[in-house]
Structures are given as C-alpha cells and as structure tokens.
C-alpha cells in the first residue's frame, strides 16, 4: 500500500551506493564483487520492468505455435521442448525460429542488454 520509496528507487539507491561509494573504497576481489553485485541489482531492476510483458509475449507466441490458448507459459515452454526433442518442431519451422529469436532477445535485454549477439 505504501511505496515511498518504491522498490525501484531503493534498488537504484543501492546500485549507486555499490558503484560510487563501496567499490571505490574496496580493492582487489572485494571491489570486483561489489561491481558484480551492482550489475546483479541492475539486472533485477530490468527484470522487474520487463518480465511481465516479456512473459505475456512469450506465452502468446508459444500459444500460437502450439495452437493452445489455455496452458500456462511454463507448460507451453515444456511442450515446445518436448516437440523439438521428438522432431515435431525443428529448424525448418520459420514460426518456431522467429518465436525463439524474439523470446531470447527479450531475455537478453534483461540479462545482458549490451551483448553483441543481439544485433547480428
């Protein structure tokens, strides 16, 4: 009910503390891990902002691919894996490739938005 400061504001503040106050005062492995910790929180920040829309989009892509509007994303994802394993879905299916590219790109936008593989 009360969100002042919001989760986003708190995260941003901790990221700033790790990068600008803690890391410069640490050395060696500890300084390195402080920066990794800040990167981890930045990932969480992106995940909070992007995950709901990314999951909804993934669900609708897999639902169209499998012609199944009822199942959860987790169930659809498992089904896609099973059908690739059994050979029903494969590299010759443009809709599968397009769906996996879009879903993977959305995952990378959370995990590692600067990764070079995103823009081949």
């Amino acid at each position, binding site marked *: 009910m009360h969100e002042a400061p919001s989760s986003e504001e708190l995260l941003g503040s901790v990221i700033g503390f790790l990068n600008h106050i803690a890391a410069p005062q640490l050395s060696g492995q500890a300084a390195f891990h402080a920066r990794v910790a800040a990167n981890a929180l930045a990932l969480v920040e992106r995940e909070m902002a992007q995950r709901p829309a990314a999951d909804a989009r993934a669900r609708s892509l897999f639902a169209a691919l499998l012609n199944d509007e009822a199942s959860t994303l987790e169930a659809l994802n498992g089904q896609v894996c099973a059908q690739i394993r059994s050979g029903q879905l494969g590299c010759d299916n443009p809709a599968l*490739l397009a769906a996996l590219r879009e879903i993977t790109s959305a995952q990378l936008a959370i995990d590692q938005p600067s990764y070079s593989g995103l823009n081949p």
Partner: protein
Amino acid sequence: MTALTAALTRLIQTRFGPSAEVREMTRLSGGASQETWGFSLHVPEEAPRQLILRRAPFQSTAKGEAIGLVREAQVIAAAAQTGTPVPEIVHVCSPEDDLGDAFIMAHVAGQTIARKILRDEEYSLARPLLAFQCGEAMAKIHAVAPDNLPSDLPISHGLDQLDRYEAIYRGFSMDRPVFELALSWLRQHAPAPLPTTLVHGDFRNGNLMVNESGLAAVLDWELAHQGDPREDLGWICVNSWRFGVRDKKVGGFGSLEDLLAGYQASGGQSFEPKDVDWFQALGSFKWGIMCLIMYQAFATKADPSIERAMIGRRASEAEIDLLNLIEGRPHA
C-alpha cells in the same frame, strides 16, 4: 615463512643448490581447487628468474574434465617439442616435494585480459597478427606425437562432448527450447570425425598470453585431450570470446581465413571456413551449459559468490549465438 613457501624453498634448494632462495611469493589467482603463485628464484651469481607455481591443494581432486596438473605439465612439455609457444616447464612435482598436485613453469610476460588486448594501443600491432599466429600454434599443438602424451589422456570427439553436455543439461531439468533446437541441429549436421590429434580444449581469449608482437604463450591446458583438431579452430570463433568485436570472428581480433592460413602454413591440414562451423556451434552449446553448471555451483552453495550466480544469466548469450548460427546470420 608459510608452510607452502617452506616446502617450495626445500624443493628449490634441492634443484638449484643450498643457496637458492624463493622471494616475492605472490598469490596470482585461483579458487578453492587450484592456486597459481608467482615468485622470484634467486641463485647466487645468476640473474633472478620469475617463475610460476601451479598447485592443487592436497585434499582436492580434479573436477569435471580437468586432467590434473601433472598431466597438464606433461602435455605442455610435449607441445613445446613441436614449437608451440608455451611456458617452459621447470619442474613437475612428485609426492615427496610436499606441494600436492603441482608444477613450476617459467613466467611469460604479457597480457591475457581480452578487453585490453582488443582495445589498448599497446597491442595495435599485435592484433592484425594474432589470428594467423593462433592458427600456427594450433597446427603445432595438433602435430604433437601421441607417444609423447600421457597414456591416459582422455579421448573425446565432438559427438562425445555433445552427449556429455546434453546429459548435464538433462540432469538440471531446465526446459530451454533453444538448447533443445541446438541439440537437434548439432545431431543432424555432425561431421564425420577426423583422425585424433592432441586438442588444447580451451584455446581462447583469457588463456592466450599476448605481448606487443602477438602471441607469446598458450596457457591453461587443463582441458587438453585427444580429439578432433577442428574443435580448437571452432572454439576460438565462439562469439562470447570476441568481447563485442563481433565482425572479427577469431577472438575479436582476426578473421577465420587468417586463422586457417596460419594453420596450413605451419603444416596443418587445409580447412575451409565451413569445416569449422559445426564446432563453433558445439562450442556455443557447451558454453551455454557451462553457464548453467556455474549457476548450479551457486544454487547448491558449492560456490556462493555473486559472480557465479551472474554467469548463470549468460546462458542466454549462448542461446542467441546458437540461433544466429542455425539461421546462418552474418558475423554469427
């Protein structure tokens, strides 16, 4: 003096005389299972030598595919005989040396950090030479006579590795459609294996010591095995080792054509770029599963560091690279 320095000093004095001294002992890197130390060897009336001690503490056993340090030293010594740029092996430890599984090698000056090698002015003359030089080094590695290798060095071809990494992936019970698709693609397109050679197994940025004139030494031989020579050629093309310089397929510093030209110039077989594609895709698949393995080490608290956890989130970089390869995108 620590117990480690004391044991090292005893060994050094046995080898180089009672006046020999160990100075400036410095921990360079390593985790719980393996340590790397730098030190300076002082012998009267000789110039000091910078040496490296690599050791695994007594209780630890070699993990995963790692061959153990004694075999690693034997492989490095064998590779030196064909002219591969490697650190000179100074001593391979036996149990009476009291240092655990360990060896001592010469320190080779240079840089291993990819971001510096790919961007710093200091390496601007080295960068255009590196792909060709890596090809030359690989040809020399692949020319090592089997008789010079430890007799129990593992044999592992491309499909053996696919089987092993698939089993690891299945063991995690994670449903990742891109990895499923990559498995199916790799099985459909697997090339017939070539006659077995020594394979470095981890020939990439991070394990290459580079100086201003190029490749100074090939390091980290713990994944060495006998297998398909194309495995090394493909692994250095994996996009994850290009650190953002994706149009330079070989390590972010050079072209596959240069790598293959250097390979052939040093007596390696003549390969076409397409001969390497399957092994590059295998490499991206293996890297993706390695990311999950590192996440598992975090999840099971074997290594609770935040760094381990974050590497788990790099599995998606392998996934996009696999899709780019399967679809034949430029610079994949």
